[in-house]
């Protein structure tokens, strides 16, 4: 599968392990990435707070460059949730709002560029892996299944919401990454905080709010029995990992829940080395959790035969199909 690739500012340095692990596994999953030449910052959640048309134009330049540079593919992918959302939002809103389209293109014209909304299909990296490359293809490349590793799949907000083109099964309880982790041999835990916010930029401008949110997530993952948290966004990883240390200081707690990218786990399952995958660069060391990986698949408990209900028994639960 071919795709234009927008790395985004975070992946260059603070989320370097995300990029490294992605590059390490792309051949295994037959994903050819063509990086946009001379891309610029997407503006994150900050640029749009100050300007609107300029914010869309900032993103527009990347869309236009991708459109012009695209060779036999119309898919544009990003790994960072905010970058993905900005690209998707600008494209979607230029499609829906004719005036915005005209205005943004007028701005782009000052730089000799033009973007036809809809010409690039903006997709998040996880979306490509789960829905285009597919779980079976991923499973086929697994040489070291992650048996015995309990993982909390953490999607964060901006990938599954607002989801302009309906790529995800659910805004609140998606299952794609869980299925991916299962395909890698790991055991995704059942936890309800999968898409609760990590606090975003509140770590800088409103730390009290952020720490509360971070603690809830880390504590929740731990309570659910997870050995580590798996994420798909550099901001989330930074908040849950680097700021976990700060959070511990704030609350005088001692949580040690490592946070890795899904591409790093994929790499591990594909047999790459920790160094290739940037494992070791996290603040809360992942090595102890990863040491729990077993050679054999854990035994599945025998399902007990259902006995006949008696008075005083629990009421049946609704089915979830």
């Amino acid at each position, binding site marked *: 599968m071919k795709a234009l690739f927008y790395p985004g500012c975070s992946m260059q*340095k603070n989320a370097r392990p995300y990029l490294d692990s992605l590059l390490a596994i792309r051949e295994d999953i037959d994903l050819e990435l063509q990086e946009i030449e001379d891309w610029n910052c997407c503006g994150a959640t900050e640029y749009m707070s100050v*300007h609107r*048309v300029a914010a869309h*134009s900032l993103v527009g330049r990347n869309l236009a460059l991708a459109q012009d540079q695209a060779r036999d593919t119309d898919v544009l992918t990003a790994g960072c949730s905010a970058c993905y959302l900005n690209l998707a939002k600008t494209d979607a809103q230029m499609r829906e709002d004719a005036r*915005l389209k005209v*205005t943004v293109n007028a*701005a782009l014209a000052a730089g000799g560029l033009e973007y036809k909304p809809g010409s690039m299909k903006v997709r998040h990296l996880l979306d490509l892996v789960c829905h285009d490359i597919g779980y079976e293809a991923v499973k086929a490349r697994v040489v070291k299944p992650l048996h015995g590793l309990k993982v909390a799949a953490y999607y964060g*907000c901006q990938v599954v919401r*607002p989801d302009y083109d309906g790529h995800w099964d659910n805004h609140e309880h998606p299952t794609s990454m869980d299925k991916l982790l299962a395909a890698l041999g790991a055991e995704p835990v059942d936890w309800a905080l999968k898409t609760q916010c990590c*606090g975003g930029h509140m770590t800088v401008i409103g730390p009290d709010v952020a720490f509360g949110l971070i603690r809830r997530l880390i504590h929740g993952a731990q309570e659910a029995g997870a050995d580590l948290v798996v994420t798909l966004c550099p901001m989330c990883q930074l908040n849950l990992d680097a700021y976990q240390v700060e959070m511990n200081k704030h609350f005088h707690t001692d949580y040690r829940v490592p946070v890795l990218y899904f591409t790093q786990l994929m790499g591990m399952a594909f047999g790459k080395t920790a160094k290739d995958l940037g494992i070791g660069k996290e603040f809360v060391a992942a090595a102890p959790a990863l040491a729990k990986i077993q050679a054999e698949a854990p035994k599945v408990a025998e399902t007990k035969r259902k006995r006949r209900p008696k008075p005083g028994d629990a009421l049946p639960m609704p089915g979830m199909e």
Partner: protein
Amino acid sequence: MASTPGNNRLDHCIQCGSCGGSCPSGPEMDHTPRRLFALIRAGERDTVLRSNAPWYCVSCYYCTVRCPQEIHITDVMYTLKSMAIKAGLFHDAALPDFSETFVDYVEKYGRSFELGIATRFNLRHHPLSLAGMAPMGLGMLKRGRMDLTPHRIDGMAQLTAILEKAKALEGTS
């Protein structure tokens, strides 16, 4: 307000409170998103633009997907932020300053530069916290997760031209 893309439909708000109930920052906002919309409809421009609510928005989009009237709440928050900056009205200057600092770096280099943003912002607003942040900063450096110098894109002239034109067109669409 009407220029927020997606036809913000604030007139359709039934004041149900889904947004205020879903908001992760809700308890810290002086006015919940719902109350903010009531204030907007009541014409309380000053109060609305001085509110800390839009700045505390984390863009989680829970409000947007849960709103029974399909109002693009998060986008409205962005609009309110830029309006507040233009009007020079805010509750705490630190809040818009963070965004503006970010914008400055992007407009200079075409890329964001965390060390620069964090340092400048904290020097200006929370100088004492810089000391407390040192361990984390060092931790990032040690792990090769932070740049000491910013990167500049090649097409800076092109980007600048685009952004200048865009700003001139602001408010015309």
